[in-house]
């Protein structure tokens, strides 16, 4: 089981929330929003690959 993915996503979430706080405090709200958005897209790419893998597995296993 690929447990690294969970830690990767959790770490990215914490780093991005810290970056967000720092950027908001220094008055760069737009950059903070963009950072959150980019982080979300990166994590989404990771998760979508795994979801595709799961669905493929279900399809091959049950001969769909």
């Amino acid at each position, binding site marked *: *089981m*690929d*447990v690294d*993915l*969970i830690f990767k*996503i*959790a770490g*990215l*979430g*914490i780093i*991005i*929330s810290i970056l*967000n706080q720092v950027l908001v405090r220094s008055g760069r709200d737009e950059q903070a929003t963009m950072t*959150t958005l980019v*982080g*979300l897209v990166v*994590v*989404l790419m*990771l*998760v979508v690959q*795994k*979801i595709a*893998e*799961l*669905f493929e*597995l*279900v*399809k091959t*296993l*049950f*001969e*769909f």
Partner: protein
Amino acid sequence: MSYFFRIAAVGMIAAIWILLIRKQNADFALLLSIACMVLVLIGALTYLQPVVEYIHQLQNLCQLNTEVLAPLFKTIAVGIVCQIVTGVCADAGEQALAKTIELCGTIVALYVSLPLIKAVFSLFDSILQGG
């Protein structure tokens, strides 16, 4: 069997991470829970592979037609996917979407099992016509 204990540990750790992250940004928490769910399921489904192979062996032993078991497997697949997606939608707070996908899964399961129902009724018909 040790896989199950690993799953339990990973589930607890992921729950703690999700609690930690949810305060800052809830979307990451949702993605993390989806990732954990998918990882656990991928592992569990690989363990289901021998069971499916054994069912195929039994099928060959009974010389059962492939068309009889195919709707069963397809319905299981639809059920699993439907359950996962409904859970994710409910977690994201989209109850209406979850209910719609559940309904959609039911309809698809019915559609998938249609050939089996047809076969049963044609069997009844042949028995009644013969009698």
